[in-house]
């Protein structure tokens, strides 16, 4: 037995059953190196430890798939000059910077500028420890214990304790606060179930077993920055009091904000002297400002609005694989979609490759009519990809007694590429004799309505297109859209098998179990097709070629602490 093996054995003795299971999976070649790193970090192993084990235990291939096209690797690091001020273009936040109510990328960017999370969900969907040094579940995944980093100070000077973490999460899950974080934590963590037994430990008692809980309290849930226990979240915008490597110097609503290096930071001090956020209402002026050398980093741009950057040699495009997608729902309880063959026929009429090329310039992954994006490690990619098949679609319609086709209204709203997608659906459906009348109802407010059944075009329409943002794990998509009691179940899909499988998936603690449940869910949804998902598109950022180490995550978070200029 060599030294390395002895060290591995010693490490494994101290690890939990779940952690050892993941190490076994990797050693047996069942998961790739990347998946091993990701899963290892999710269950609480530190990145250095995971890296050591990855090297020592061999296992699967690298599995590196992030980035693409003209992009650079989202996590590549380069040597840079120290200091400098980075100018960042950010979409205008739509609310005041209150951690409870921020609900968009602009606001998320502000929160993450000074605030820190228990962990940071990076572009590879790995969790990097931040204010939590480690975390681990109990045997059945209903309880998660987080060890809180010691010696951390807020910018105001107060010392971080477990009580700050507890208070932060209690306030996020309190229904009275109507926190935006409830979209991830609702039904997972109830008020009163977060405990701080000592200054360095926080225990979350969950409503049900949840293998992805650490992700739900990471930066992936952008409202979950840890703030001082005695600070009213509504007042956070006055001071931006956080623990991050930068502190707020000035903030002007609707204009921008400036941040400078925080010298009391617990970790490696930030490389830049600071950075400046400039708010933009629209994407166009943001792109022009980048080309006019007025900003160095565009936090997010779209393919349709940022074509100029995709071909600009002075733009370094950072592409991060994401789970952002559009859902074309078909009401399973209303004609003409009560017969699943009709739903399958519509899904089979779609030319997904053409959509990815035409709408996204290739910067998207094909969707397979389930929310399991290729970016998720738990996605079972052996499930056959649904492709356009007009003959099969016509046959299905004929079998369903609709050989002459039918007419249906598709309702959606005027935003992003959605109207173009609606027209493509109409065009493809016409090839199988289906007439889709597209009705664009106005803006998102009109489409979503009160977001409850009976008062929402989104949830009441027979057919519609809905936009879904990135989630680092598919839990919310699954529980809200595909379960019988799902509050976003626009297809009115009620299937007890799906309910059971989704519950199994959410409770699964190891990747094997998750993937086994995922495979069954994917196959079931492909068969039932309550919803068609034609693509998952990449999250795009742009940096000046001389700006290196700017990190983007698909949630709208960015990390400039190691960024700098090469010249």
């Amino acid at each position, binding site marked *: 037995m060599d030294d390395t093996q002895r060290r591995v054995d010693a490490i494994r003795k101290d690890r939990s059953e779940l952690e050892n299971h993941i190490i076994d999976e990797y050693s047996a070649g069942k998961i790739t190196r990347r998946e091993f790193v990701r899963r290892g970090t999710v269950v609480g192993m530190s990145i250095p430890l995971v890296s050591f084990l990855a090297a020592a235990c061999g296992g699967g291939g690298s599995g590196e798939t992030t980035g693409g096209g003209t992009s650079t690797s989202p996590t590549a690091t380069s040597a840079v000059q120290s200091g400098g001020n980075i100018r960042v273009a950010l979409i*205008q936040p*739509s*609310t*005041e910077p*209150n951690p409870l*109510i921020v*609900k968009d990328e602009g606001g998320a960017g502000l929160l993450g500028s000074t605030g820190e999370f228990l962990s940071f969900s990076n572009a590879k969907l790995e969790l990097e420890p931040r204010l939590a040094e480690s975390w681990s579940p109990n045997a059945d995944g209903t309880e998660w214990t987080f060890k809180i980093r010691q010696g951390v100070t807020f910018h105001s000077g107060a010392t971080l304790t477990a009580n700050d973490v507890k208070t932060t999460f209690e306030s996020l899950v309190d*229904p*009275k606060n*109507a926190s*935006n974080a*409830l*979209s991830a934590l*609702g039904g997972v963590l109830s008020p009163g179930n977060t405990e701080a037994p000592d200054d360095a430990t926080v225990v979350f008692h969950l409503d049900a077993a949840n293998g992805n809980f650490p992700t739900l309290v990471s930066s992936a849930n952008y409202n979950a920055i840890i703030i001082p226990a005695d600070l009213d979240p*509504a007042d956070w*915008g006055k001071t931006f009091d956080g623990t991050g490597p930068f502190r707020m110097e*000035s903030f*002007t*609503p*609707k*204009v921008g904000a400036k941040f400078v290096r925080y010298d009391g930071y617990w970790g490696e001090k930030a490389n830049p002297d600071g950075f400046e956020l*400039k708010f*933009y*209402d*629209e994407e*166009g*002026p*943001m792109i*022009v*400002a980048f*080309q*006019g050398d*007025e900003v160095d980093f565009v936090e997010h741009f779209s393919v349709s609005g940022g074509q100029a950057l995709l071909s600009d040699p002075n733009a370094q495009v950072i592409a991060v694989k994401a789970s952002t997608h559009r859902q074309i729902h078909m009401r399973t309880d209303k004609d003409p979609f009560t017969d699943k063959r009709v739903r399958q026929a519509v899904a089979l009429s779609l030319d997904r490759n053409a959509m990815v090329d035409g709408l996204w310039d290739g910067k998207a992954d094909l969707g397979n009519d389930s929310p399991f994006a290729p970016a998720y490690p738990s996605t079972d990619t052996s499930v056959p990809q649904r492709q356009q098949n007009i003959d099969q679609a016509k046959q299905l319609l004929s079998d369903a007694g609709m050989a002459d086709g039918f007419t249906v209204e598709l309702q959606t709203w005027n935003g992003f590429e959605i109207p173009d997608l609606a027209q493509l659906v109409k065009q493809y459906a016409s090839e199988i004799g289906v007439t889709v009348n597209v009705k664009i109802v*106005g803006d*998102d*407010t*009109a489409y*979503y309505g*009160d*977001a*409850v059944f009976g008062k929402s075009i*989104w949830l009441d329409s027979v057919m519609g297109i809905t936009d879904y943002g990135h989630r680092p794990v598919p839990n919310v998509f699954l529980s809200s859209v595909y379960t019988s009691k799902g*509050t*976003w179940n626009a297809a009115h899909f009620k299937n007890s098998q799906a309910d059971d499988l989704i519950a199994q998936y959410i409770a699964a603690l190891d990747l094997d179990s998750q993937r086994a449940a995922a495979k069954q869910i994917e196959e079931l949804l492909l068969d039932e097709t309550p919803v068609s998902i034609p693509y998952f598109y990449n999250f795009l950022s742009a940096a000046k070629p001389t700006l290196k180490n700017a990190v983007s995550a698909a949630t709208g978070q960015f990390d400039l602490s190691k960024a700098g200029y090469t010249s």
Partner: protein
Amino acid sequence: MGRFLLTRLGLAAITLFLLSVFVFLGANLLPGNVARRKLGNLADQSAVDQLNHQLGTDKPILVQYWNWITGLLHGDLGTSLSYQLPVSQLIGPALTNSVKLAAFAFVMVVPLAIVGGVVAALKRDRLTDRIITVGGLSLAVVPEFVTGIMLILVFGLWLGLFPVSANAPDGSDILTQLKYLFLPALTLVIVLFGYISRITRAGTIEALDADYTRTAMLKGLPRRTVVRRHVLRNSLLPTIAVIATQTGYLIGGLVVIETLFNYPGMGRLIFTAANDKDFPLLAASVLIVGIVFLVATLLADIAYSLLNPRIRYAAAE
């Protein structure tokens, strides 16, 4: 003159009151729900109801109006629903920015358009006239976002002479600020030149054809003197009215230009307030723009009456 002013001020007060009613009702008639807008499309309905209750937006509209107008009369413009800041803190900087841009644009366009209009009138039906009138009109009909984008491309990106954003860095001196404001101001000059110069031209031609001008010429006065003393004084009357009516547009209507040049002025503020259903901010912003417009109109009336005594005598009767 005093009675004239009092009459105008009285009318302005009535207009403002009606404006406040229309603005408030209009803002509240916008489709959508304040709390829903704030919490997002996917927020739970109970949370939405609770926030509406907290914000007071679930009260009857007359109660809301009464609370708003009484606050306004006490100098309280209210609190922005989106930003949870006093509305005055948001309107103050935006109004300052808008005034800066409007003033810069006026300083460039007014003399230019008046000179252009007068020259066109003096050279009526000749090549110079054609160039000024047809050229001005052609530029005026080009949508302002097209003009703005062209200027950004040429002077901002290709030649690199001017910044593509209008908001100068904090602490910039006046020259730097003017440099940043140059392209949006030039866009406005191009948009307004054709209109103002055409009005000036028409007024000048009318004055040139008037009996008093012919009499002055027949008296043997030099042409320059006739133009300065008799023609300009009368020909500028409609021009002043037109300039005054443009004030409201320049202060509160530049949504496209302010967005294009990422300039935080009143136009963008009003637009985003309407979009976010931020009633207090929207209503106060529109009211402020209304006041600016009324003041400009009042000043125009005064200038009008000074240039043409018949108007103030008629108003005083």
